[in-house]
């Protein structure tokens, strides 16, 4: 059962949000994903997420203006991304 780790940085000044979310992502167990609550879209974070192997979606937040849902990209790896079985 996967579980959400919630991180609310809507009251924090830069660069705290970035530091905290990267720290959280590093300590993430294989069965966890992140709901990242922010005042605005953390655009500089997105390329880093891609590089770290995470996928994400942005939604209008309930508890904060923006929520970024971040999960391991392996969770939605499609068959077309498979390695060649012959290697």
């Amino acid at each position, binding site marked *: *059962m*996967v579980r959400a780790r919630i991180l609310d940085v809507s009251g924090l000044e830069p660069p705290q949000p970035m530091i905290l979310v990267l720290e959280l992502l590093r300590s993430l*167990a*294989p*069965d966890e994903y992140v709901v990242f609550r922010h005042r605005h879209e953390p655009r500089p974070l997105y390329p880093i997420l891609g590089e770290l192997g995470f996928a994400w979606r942005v939604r209008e937040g309930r508890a904060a203006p923006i929520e970024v849902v971040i999960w*391991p990209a*392996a*969770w939605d*790896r499609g*068959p*077309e991304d*498979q*390695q*060649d*079985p*012959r*290697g």
Partner: protein
Amino acid sequence: MKPLPLALDDLPPFRVPLRFFLTAPLFGVLAGIVVIVEGETVFASRWSPALIGATHLLTLGWLAMVMIGALFQVVPVLSGRGIPAAARVAAPVHLALTLGTLGLAYGLVASSPNLVALGLGGLLAAFLLFGGLLAWRVLRPSRGGGALVTIRFAVLALFATVALGAWMAAGIAWPSLGIPYRASTDSHARFGLFGWVLLLVMGVSQQVVPMFHVTPPFPAAIARGCGVTVFGGLILLATSDARLAVVIGASATASASLAWAIALLAVLAKRKRRRTDATVRAWQLACWVLIGTAPIAWQIAVVPDLPISFVARHQQALLLGVLVVLGFCVTVVLGMLQKIVPFLAFTHLQRRALKNPAAIPLLPAMEDFVSTRTATIQIAIHATAIALTIAAAFEPAVARAAGAALCVDFAFCAVNLTRAALRYRRVVASVAERE
């Protein structure tokens, strides 16, 4: 039981586990040949060099070979992340394990310290390389259900087995060191068979049996408790000779083994899928062997001089070894292999064909790689081989017949798996042509 999140898409290429699966039965055939060549002397005593050599052909060449191949497959799935560089490491691990096993086994049979030393080198290389990668993945802290906890104990038991085995092999390879290696034999065997193999089987079975045979889940207490109890018992037995420690340790290990075997039989009896299935037969055979074995193991450890024992004392360890190694461990692995190879062939082909949906109807089904009939015959041959080898433990005159049965058993397996692999290659080629 709460299964772990499984990232089933993180599959390594088929060739990674396949090379292990195709080599393993050849070692089984070699074990049979050793028994045929050496004949009656194999079962003369538990210390007979041919017996120890043949045993290691089975434990290293068959069990460790298949289990390491399967772990390359299973660990990424269980832990949600791939084994680093799995594809690159598989070939050297496989080579080192193959050469190491050949060296050690031949060195033991021929009583050649130099060959034992060579074998030791190869095996240490294989286990350090693979064990390092595995431990990094499996022992990493993460929340996990009963399965992952049990598998962690299995890996710890593997370390203990390899460490003790290396210590003993060093004693044989360099006699001048004066290592009292025989004293560690029981601990080495217990950690290897009841620790590594049994614990791994306990962990894996609670995941795969409910899923693929549509059974109720394992009772939660069994799923969580058996692994810890077995491991605790083994530690107690290995670290203390005190009477109380032996009684508690042996009782813990034996009762948890019994509880797991009975629970698995009960779970299987309630399976919704009633169709004939060779893997179910293999599970049932292994459970019954374990139910028969646990009390014998307990008796040998706790009351070795039981006057009413139906087995002469010098035969007790022999019988126990045959039951655990051939009757339980080899059976479980053989049964799962009948499913794993067709399963992986099928899954890899399905993935490939998704790029080209028109090809899906042309793909073989799992049964086309190893049919239920073939797999059922395999388990029947294996049951015969077990029976003959048990007979040989009592009556060495049967030894050559047992050796021949082992050869047939593993040769049949080798032929069927090779045919499955060749069929897979043909289909991959024909799908590629269509693209």
